[in-house]
């Protein structure tokens, strides 16, 4: 059968104004200036989330208590990126681990330096490499290094 004409349409996302929860992320960023990682702790089950949501997934109650989290942790899983988000090849493969920091129950994604791709493994101990000059943004936490 023959090809038929194309007409264009769009999903006009540009017209949206999204209110997005930010307490957890803002609290985390603010404290990073002092090389501190701060999450929120459920008063009932004790789960520590970072960035901290305003409620506990499991207990379904409000969370308002802050809790400090270590900058050392363990790799739970990882990937090695060979292409960027658009699928173009990267110059150097990039190791991206998902890390469970000590004292925290949620996981955080990042970049791992100082180790060859073939040597990274689940369970590996890592620590945060902090920036010398910190501004209260996520750039303060530069990457993970082996412990």
């Amino acid at each position, binding site marked *: 059968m023959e090809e038929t004409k194309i*007409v264009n349409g769009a*999903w006009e996302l540009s017209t949206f104004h999204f209110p997005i929860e930010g307490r957890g992320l803002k609290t985390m960023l603010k404290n990073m200036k002092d090389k501190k990682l701060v999450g929120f702790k459920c008063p009932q089950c004790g789960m520590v989330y970072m960035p901290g*949501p305003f409620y506990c997934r*499991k207990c379904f109650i409000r969370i308002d208590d802050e809790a400090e989290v270590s900058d050392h942790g363990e790799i739970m899983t990882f990937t090695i990126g060979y292409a960027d988000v658009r699928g173009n090849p990267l110059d150097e493969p990039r190791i991206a681990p998902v890390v469970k920091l000590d004292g925290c129950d949620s996981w955080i994604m990042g970049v791992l330096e100082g180790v060859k791709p073939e040597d990274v493994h689940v369970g590996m101990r890592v620590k945060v490499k902090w920036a010398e000059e910190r501004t209260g943004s996520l750039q303060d936490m530069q990457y993970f290094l082996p412990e």
Partner: protein
Amino acid sequence: MDNKVAIVGFNMASALDLETTRERLSFDLTRGLFDDLGIERDDVGTFIICTNDFLDGRTISNVFLDPSVGAYMKDESKVEMDGLNALTYACMRILSGQYETALVATLALTGTQVSPYLHIGYTLDASYDRPIKLLNELSAAALEARSYLAKYGYSEELLDDIALQDLANAARNPNQARRLEGVSKDQIAGSAYLYEPLRELHCYPATDGGCMMLLASEKRAKELCDKPVWIKGIGRSTDNYYLGDRDLSGSISASQAAERAMGMAGIKDPRKELDFAEISSLFAHQEPLLAEAMGLLEPGKAAEAYKSGDTAIDGKLPINPSGGPLGGHPICSSGLMRAAEAVLQLRGEAGKNQVEKADVALAHGQDGVCAQQSVVVVLGT
């Protein structure tokens, strides 16, 4: 459906700007409902979320809402239509015997996050109506309005009378988003034309809102609350998409849906047996149009009914005693809110808007352009 599924509780909020996020709105309303009923999330068997990706600005709009309605590690599904369809699905899950309780969770931030008109824009025929650019939610409603007025030779003044009744009811209702104290007919008739004959105050306002409702089986309902409201009948139907193929002066979807719902509820004479109706009339003319289609108003008698007060709170058959969607229309929640308002009336808790006799009620919801789809639920004590 003889008293097998009941509404045991609900919690809703609506405003022009709720100053909240989707997650917070859904958590706050759900938590509030659980506290009211003295239950926890483990007491809920299944969750039906009702949101729409084009309103939420997200593909799979329930992705971040499962935990915030308490569905973490629970059975959950999503209906993407008016909330009364989600109520229908929840009801089915209980009727099947698989679950004793079901939470229906609806919300949309169509007051502050996104224009409510976009969502209908995306339902239009992408290969024809969208490139032609003549139809949109408002122009389609205006064509429907003129068609209805022309059918009986009504003047545009009827629209002002309808809007006045609804907006005055809404002004007294704390659950409504648009509360215009002391609203007058002149104010309505003086508001700007959007598409003739529809003026600004004949149309629903852009609204933020959400409504969470817990349904339960007969046994659980009696344990969970003193005043369960029973779902007596449900009916749904679909009309053609193409406006040019439809008789816009009536509504096939509403008449078929109502016939099915009333058939199930055993209602033969709706004007006698129903005590009031909550109708998703997004535009003033839709209230008598839909009421007529559902057999609640005598055809051609709308002008008299609104003048004489038959449709008012103290009238023969009150329509939208809550104020209806002209007082607030958070898409997805709107139809469920009609049911929630009906529950308030049936429990005698509707405050200043309480109708005198409230034992059997009808709630209506719609989807698509000019109510292409309707869903009707009959509720009773």
